[in-house]
Each structure stands twice: as structure tokens, then as C-alpha cells.
């Protein structure tokens, strides 16, 4: 027996009077499952204020968190992917690209911008995981290469925010060679003695880890980020054992000596700004 009895059956509110809650106003923290309000998320730099979980965000959010007053000049935004191999799996690569352009409003899995943080010049290249899993193809490599040249020409430090599943399979060996290309360009940046900060965010794996992500003058990460060369599933299949708890997390990588420090997103801007000041003085 129910406690309440519905007196009138069905929905009786007319369509005109229907109230809509816009999508995305409320979100659930993927870690602690508590509801997060959009305004709270923005205020907390997209970190869950209950459990400290760092939500996955894109270049738009990182730029707004880091650049002073969210002001910046976007660089090389006119680059889009070619299809050198006419690749086709379950879908044509060109169709996959078109869908991704429409879905994300981005031109590829990376954006680069010049602005100021704490009143100091900085170029940030930031990957977008929404765009084909943040995969690295020719455009990602080319934008990083051009950003590095821009930094050398203008003597501006470079921050790379990685968030990627690795190389983009649809560009096969072209993607592979972006690893060599970006690493070679970083050698030039290093020769010019311009600081390079590599920030690893959830997730950073594969060819990205095995190239520019691991080559920072300082290499840092957000808490809890998955960082590794091979994916956990592949490793598990290879060694045929369960992986230890916390394997391939930022904390694990720090403990093994491959990160300089882990930084909470809410303190990131202050910490980066003070590093840049130290480099200058």
C-alpha cells in the first residue's frame, strides 16, 4: 500500500508551462558520486570540493584557470588534419574528423595560446581529450613544433599540458614520427635555455608519455592522474597478474622519481607563477 495516492493520473502540466533544467547545471563527481553544481565547479577549478577529485577538463577550462583574466591570443588555430593514408576502419578517418569538429568545436586535439600568468609571459599548448581521445597526429605535433619556435623567437617559457591516449592510429607512422619531431624541437628549446614545463593530466599515456610529456625541465602532474607508457590492460595481459593498487597514478610516478611534484589544480596558477619568477630572477 503506497503512502501517497495520485489523485489525477498522468502529466497534466501543459507543454508551455514545462520547466527545463538545462543540461550540465548539475554534475556528479565520478569519484565520490556527490552532486556538483556548475557554478561551484567553476569556482573550484573543476575540482570536487567533497573529495578533491580533479574532473577531466579541456583547453578552454585550463586557459581560463591559468591565463590572467582569461585573456590570451590563440596561436596557429588554422591547422587541421590531412588524411595522408586514406585511413578507414569502421569509419572513414575524414568522417571521424568531421564528426569531431562538429561535436567539440575544436580543430584538433590541441590548442596553443600566448598570454600572461601572474603578469608573466607564457605560451601554453593544451590537449583536448574530447577530440579523438586526445590522440597525437600531425596537427598536434605541428602545433607543438610551431609553438616551440614561437617561444624561441620571442623568448617566452613554454607550458605543455598533456592529456592523451597516445599516438593517433589513423595517421599511423606519421603519428609515430611526431614523437621524434616534438622531441627534436624540445632539444632546440633546451639549447636556447628557455624553461619548459610539462604538466601531465589524466590520462597521459603511450607515445605522448614517450616524447614531449616526459621531457620537461620540470615535469609535474595533477593528483590522481593516470600516467604510463603502456596501458594498464596491456600490462595486465602481458604479465598475467593483477596490478598493484595505485599503479601508474601520478603519486606512483612521483614515488619512482619521474615527476618533480604533484600540484592541486586550485594552487596550480600560483605555483607556476612563482616558478616562472624564480627562473627570471
Amino acid at each position, binding site marked *: 500500500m503506497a503512502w501517497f495516492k495520485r489523485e489525477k493520473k498522468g502529466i497534466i502540466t501543459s507543454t508551455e508551462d514545462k520547466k527545463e533544467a538545462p543540461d550540465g547545471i548539475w554534475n556528479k563527481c565520478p569519484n565520490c558520486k556527490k552532486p556538483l553544481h556548475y557554478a561551484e565547479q567553476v569556482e573550484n577549478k573543476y575540482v570536487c570540493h567533497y573529495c578533491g577529485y580533479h574532473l577531466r577538463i579541456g583547453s578552454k577550462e585550463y586557459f581560463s584557470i591559468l591565463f590572467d583574466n582569461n585573456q590570451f591570443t590563440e596561436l596557429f588555430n588554422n*591547422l*587541421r588534419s590531412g588524411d595522408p593514408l586514406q585511413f578507414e576502419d569502421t569509419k572513414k578517418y575524414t568522417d571521424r574528423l568531421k564528426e569531431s569538429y562538429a561535436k567539440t568545436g575544436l580543430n584538433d586535439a590541441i590548442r596553443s595560446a600566448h598570454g600572461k600568468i601572474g603578469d608573466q609571459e607564457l605560451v601554453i599548448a593544451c590537449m583536448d581529450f574530447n577530440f579523438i581521445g586526445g590522440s597525437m597526429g600531425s596537427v598536434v605535433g605541428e602545433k607543438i613544433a610551431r609553438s616551440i619556435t614561437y617561444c624561441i623567437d620571442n623568448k617566452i617559457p613554454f607550458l605543455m599540458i598533456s592529456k592523451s591516449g597516445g599516438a593517433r592510429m589513423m595517421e599511423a607512422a606519421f603519428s609515430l614520427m611526431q614523437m621524434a619531431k616534438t622531441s627534436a624541437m624540445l632539444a632546440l628549446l633546451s639549447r636556447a635555455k628557455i624553461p619548459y614545463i610539462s604538466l601531465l593530466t589524466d590520462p597521459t599515456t603511450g607515445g605522448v608519455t614517450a616524447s614531449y610529456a616526459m621531457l620537461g625541465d620540470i615535469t609535474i602532474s595533477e593528483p590522481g592522474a593516470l600516467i604510463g*607508457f603502456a596501458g594498464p590492460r596491456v600490462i595486465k595481459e602481458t604479465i598475467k597478474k593483477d596490478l598493484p593498487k595505485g*599503479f601508474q597514478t601520478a603519486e606512483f610516478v612521483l614515488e619512482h622519481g*619521474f615527476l618533480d611534484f604533484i600540484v592541486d589544480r586550485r594552487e596550480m596558477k600560483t605555483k607556476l607563477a612563482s616558478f616562472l619568477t624564480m627562473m627570471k630572477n
Partner: protein
Amino acid sequence: MEISFDFEKPVADLMHQIEKVKQVEDKTKVDMTATVAELETKLQQAKLQVYSNLSGWQKVQISRHPNRPYTLQYIEMMCDDFIELHGDRTVKDDKAIVGGFASINGETVMLIGHQKGTNTKLRQYRNFGMANPEGYRKALRLMKLAEKFNKPVITFIDTPGAYPGLEAEERGQGEAIARNLLEMSVLQVPVLCFVVGEGASGGALGIGVGDRVYMLENTWYSVISPESCSSILWRSWDFKERAADKLKLTSEDMFKNKLIDGIIPEPLGGAHHDPQKMADTIKARITEDLAILRKKEINNLVDERIAKFRGMGVVNEI
């Protein structure tokens, strides 16, 4: 009996026939020379037919043929002298990458390469040519040593990939490969790289940044093996032939896409059909290239090397 693949059946059959005819000849003492000669001609035709139209997947299979020569065998066939050097000076000696000073026609070079085993026990000992971080760090240590004494670096690539293991992650597989890419791109001596078997992804590129990068005719080089590509894109290994085709991983495709500098022809049927001839071909190319690269001003050489990799990739400006 030679290990042969399905597509080699016409060749294998004829070889078998010749063998039989010869046995009959031995037993009966009847002269079969004419028959043998006829079959030999047929065999030659069959070989040409089979080996001149190989698909991507067939080349992948040849590149993995267990009788193909590996780095140490090439060194034995090519070099007047070789002093193997071990260890990364941090953790251990990786058996999947070998290296040391070698003498080629009297000239000292640093020769580094992946090493696979030749029987089950050795294959395990060499970890199937899958290096751990210490392998890449040993390679880098040796390259730096070569740079110090102004000796050119030559690398032989043949790996199914960098080892995806627990310890490999703990010791920074990604960092080890990344460091090599950066350091090799500015190494102050000529660097020649040869893909002699499998060129799988970062594990191959980790010793593959050079002034000249060559692939032997029947080898492959890509971002992922056809099997793994198939399992990711089609969620099954059954599409490996299609993946091999789509990835454009053969030496011709890689050369056409300007991702390598040249193709080294193999003896008909593959390097394992005539290892010495293969070694001689590679040796000739090394001698020829070093003569050219040695004449270049080292800073120009490094700038050209960086510019070459800088130029790789296809983008559209909109």
C-alpha cells in the same frame, strides 16, 4: 625443413620436388640433370612470382621469420672486430638491446641494435627483442660514448615493441624512450639507422632517430603492430591483414610518404635466404653513407637531421 608461409607454398612445393628428384637420382644412379634444371627454372619463376607481389601482411610475416639474421649475426658478418659493452650503469644489463664498438673496413663505429633469440631459451633470454628502460638507457650511454670519441652511431631496429611490463613502468619506459629521441636528434656524430625486422612504435623509434633511416625491403615500421591495431579498431585479431594494409607500414609506403630515407633491397625471398649477401649490402651502404656524412660540418648535419624530422606530418591550413 625450412619454415615457410602459406603464400610461399608454390616455392616450397617445387623445392620439395627437386629434393625428391635428387634422392631418386642418388638411389637409382639415373641421370636426372635435365629434370632438375627444368624444375630449377620453374622454381626461379615461382619465386619471382611470389616475392615480387607481397602484401603488407606477407611482409610482416617475412620480417618475423625466425631464420632472419639479428643484430649480433650481422655484426659477425660485417665487422672485422667487435667489443660488446654492457649495462646502463643504473639498474642492469638489458639483453634485448646489444651494443659496442665495432670495426667496419677498419673504421670504428658504435653499433647498437635490438637482439632476438634464435631458439626458445634464447628468445626468452632476449625477452623477444622487447627492451626495458635500461635497454634504452644503455643505448644512450653508448651513443654518448661514441659522441665523446667522435665515432659514428649505427643502429639496427628489430622489435615487436618496448616491453609493457610492471617494472618497465616503474623505471620509466616512457621517459627512457623520450630522452633518447631528444638526445639522438642532437647527437654530434653521424647516425645511421636500419630497420632490419620489425619496427614497432616507440620501442623502435627509441633507437631510430638518425641522419639516414633505412628499411630493409621486407620489414615494417609503424605506430602499432597490425594485430594490436586490429584488436583496437575492430576488437578482434582477425583483421590483421586489413590493418597491415591500412597502416601503410611497408618499406615502399614509408619511403613514398617520406618517413624514411631509403630501402635496402633484400635477397629474393628475404634476408634469411642469403644472410651474407644481406650483410654485404648493408655494409656497402654504411661505408658509402659514412664517407658522405663524415664530410659534412657536424652542426649542419645536426640541423639537417632536426629539419628532416621537423618536416614530417601532413596538415591542412584552413
